[in-house]
């Protein structure tokens, strides 16, 4: 069978302009070769900055913001995309090659109906009449498992869920019967329980329409389910390229092995979980406007242990953190540390009560003031709670930096000069500076690459051992729960579905939701997707 897409010696560069110096050429991607047959799926996998999106977009002869494709060939059906002029490329984009982006919510125009946007490219390229296009869209909505396929297109983007929108975007890409679709992290922004449906829909649609696809993701377990071949990338170069089975089961390179074996942490669950060190009892909470978010939630965590709260978005797990910290006073219920009730509202809590309970945010980017240096960020709690100043403060900051394994030379840096993992480490140091007893971690690793996230989890566990910290770890990722928790609370639509020691909560018999949640976590073996779809009992609420 002739190759549909053949990429040879691809080289992509960008120009950076340091002030006062001559512009510098930076090579983003170099020496990339691959071929893709009709109807096959190639997975491109790597951490952020590996160049996977850049390579994916080169199949559309597109360079994002200042990026230039400077070498090599990308042959689509034997014609070099990179040698084409603008008009020829426009004839191909949206007709022969289509693109599905990570955030469907940001990619749909909220002012137009979904159906009109789905068929727009096909009409524009005059591939079909409006009636044909609508019929094809309805057919695609049907394959993709969208509700009421005939009338789904009449809805506006805000009227459907995130998972549905992502599938609608896949329909948009498939509508013009393209030869090739580039999927750029299509399920990354979705809940695990929703991800599985979208993944299944994409896989089915690719099979039925016999379209070839480039599937870009950072999650090896996800790509293993949909692709025939996998290319592992790192820092713009190819690490390993081969059939999916070989990459997953017999990876040759160390880096690939690290990716396959990520989340290697094994944490022995604590035996005694009865003592209630930090406790929330009978919490009812609602936001202004009256929608009730939490309904009679009671849980506790002993000293030096980790309670993981799991659930999909909208389950109320972050609201629970807001109640615990006093940002959202509950309608009923109480928060206690060592049996001593904490005032419901933030303003009524004493400085010492505030110190004992610290919060680590999901997005370290927005959790730190970009105008303060690392020294100021970590040093402020020291001054605020203990009155430490001057050289002594610098010494203590450096001590904290050592504890988070960052070492010297960071005190005067600004957050923008740190990597994502380093930022999250600084956020942890800021929490530690207060000498807290309980740290609430609100999805601290979900914005990070798997290997970096692994490092952060290791650090948190080490600190727990050394300092006897209690964690309330909010996450949607069961794999993390398995790795670090002592006890687990499962939340679903504002209620506590299950709460107890990890070994009990994560072993059968399950209630329907816990069952769904456990089965939705992508596993690193072939055929996992099919097994789950065959055995699960209910669908996600966010679907």
């Amino acid at each position, binding site marked *: 069978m002739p190759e549909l897409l053949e990429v040879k010696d691809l080289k992509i560069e960008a120009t950076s*302009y*340091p*002030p*006062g110096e001559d512009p510098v050429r930076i090579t983003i991607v170099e020496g990339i070769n691959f071929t893709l047959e009709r109807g096959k799926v190639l997975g491109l996998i790597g951490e952020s900055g590996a160049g996977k999106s850049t390579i994916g977009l080169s199949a559309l002869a597109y360079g994002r913001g200042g990026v230039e494709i400077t070498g090599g060939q990308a042959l689509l059906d034997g014609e070099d995309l990179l040698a084409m002029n603008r008009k020829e490329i426009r004839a191909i984009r949206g007709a022969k090659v289509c693109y599905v982006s990570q955030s469907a919510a940001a990619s749909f125009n909220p002012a137009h109906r979904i159906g009109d946007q789905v068929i727009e490219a096909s009409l524009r390229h005059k591939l079909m009449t409006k009636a044909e296009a609508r019929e094809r869209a309805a057919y695609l909505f049907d394959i993709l498992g969208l509700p009421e396929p005939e009338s789904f297109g009449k809805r506006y983007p805000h009227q459907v869920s995130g998972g549905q929108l992502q599938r609608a975007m896949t329909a948009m890409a498939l509508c013009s019967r393209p030869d090739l679709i580039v999927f750029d992290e299509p399920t990354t922004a979705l809940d695990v329980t929703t991800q599985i449906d979208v993944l299944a829909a994409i896989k089915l649609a690719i099979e039925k329409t016999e379209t070839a696809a480039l599937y870009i993701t950072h999650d090896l377990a996800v790509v293993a389910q949909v692709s025939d071949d996998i290319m592992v990338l790192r820092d713009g170069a190819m690490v390993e390229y081969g059939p999916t089975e070989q990459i997953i089961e017999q990876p040759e390179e160390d880096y690939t092995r690290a990716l396959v074996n990520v989340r290697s942490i094994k944490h022995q669950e604590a035996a005694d979980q009865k003592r209630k060190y930090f406790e929330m009892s009978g919490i009812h909470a609602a936001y202004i406007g009256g929608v009730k978010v939490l309904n009679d939630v009671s849980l506790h965590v002993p000293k030096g242990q980790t309670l993981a709260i799991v659930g999909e978005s909208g389950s109320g797990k972050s609201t629970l953190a807001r109640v615990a*910290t*006093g*940002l959202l006073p509950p309608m009923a219920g109480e928060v206690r540390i060592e049996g001593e009730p904490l005032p419901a509202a*933030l303003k009524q*809590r004493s*400085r010492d009560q*505030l*110190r004992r309970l*610290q*919060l680590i*945010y999901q*997005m370290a980017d*927005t*959790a*730190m*003031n*970009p*105008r*303060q*240096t690392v020294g100021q960020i970590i040093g*402020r*709690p020291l001054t*605020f709670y203990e009155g430490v100043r001057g050289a002594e403060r610098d010494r203590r900051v450096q001590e904290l930096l050592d504890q988070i394994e960052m070492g010297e030379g960071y005190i005067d840096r*600004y*957050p*923008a*000069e740190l990597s994502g993992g380093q930022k999250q480490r600084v956020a942890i140091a*800021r929490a530690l500076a*207060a000498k807290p007893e309980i740290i609430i971690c609100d999805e601290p690793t979900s914005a990070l690459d798997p290997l970096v996230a692994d490092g952060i989890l290791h650090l948190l566990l080490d600190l727990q051992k050394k300092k006897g910290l209690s964690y309330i770890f909010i996450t949607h990722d069961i794999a993390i729960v398995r790795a670090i928790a002592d006890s687990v609370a499962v939340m679903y639509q504002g209620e506590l579905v299950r709460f107890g020691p990890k070994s009990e909560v994560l072993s059968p018999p399950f209630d329907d939701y816990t069952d769904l949640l456990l089965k939705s976590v992508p596993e690193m073996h072939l055929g996992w997707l099919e097994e789950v779809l065959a055995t699960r009992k209910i669908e996600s609420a966010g679907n």
Partner: protein
Amino acid sequence: MRLKEIPISVWIGMTGIIVALICAFFAPWIAPYGETEVVGDVWAPASDQFFFGLDNLGRDILSRMIFGARTTLFVAFCATLLSFTLGIVMSFIAATNRGWIDLGLSRFNDLMMSIPTLIFALVVLATLPQNMPTLIIVMAVLDSTRVFRLGRAVALDVAVMDFVEAARLRGEGTAWVILREILPNTLSPLLAEFGLRFAFAILFVSTLSFLGLGIQPPTADWGGMVKDNKDGIIFGISAALVPGAAIAILTICVNLVVDWLLRRTSSLKGGRGDA
């Protein structure tokens, strides 16, 4: 920060501002003649003796320009500074507290803005004693409504960020949240606005002087000088254009510098690395 990294436009702007400042500070020593001294014929043309010629009363225009820089810059700068202090403090209090405080301040601000500035200023200045502090305060209060609008908008964007919440969770007071967390992150748009508002203040004080309600004669100021000499234009005498040009040039110079400051302060790497 290396000097050679400063672009040429900034040097031009700085030169203009420094010349104006030198004139303002050292007017009595630089000016060849006195501020109110009559030295020759009415509207005498430029000559070696009188660089820009003489004005409608026979006073040296160059000397009056130098003295005028002092008055105009002082009034405009004080008014802008006061309006920013007032506007930023009020708007940040509104943005951090929200609720009825925000509502009250914002609606009062809307009320003030609904009255045309110039008419408001004319009415107020006509009733109040005509001296410099009054003029500065009236200009500042009127201008602070614009600053409030901008300040509240930018502060609201920052106030919802996680790091502000983190500061609150730490137990920080409103003063810390406003001054240390929000203000540094809103400085770029506010600085740009400061430059623009300063230029407007120069124009506004000139306008008021032109209408006879600003700086009172015989004190020299650029707007007033335009007024004094405007009748000459009919006779082809360019005396009024000199202070007019000075106003325009200073406004441009201020903006050249502000544009650059804006680029520098919007860098998140403390001015290191990318600009």
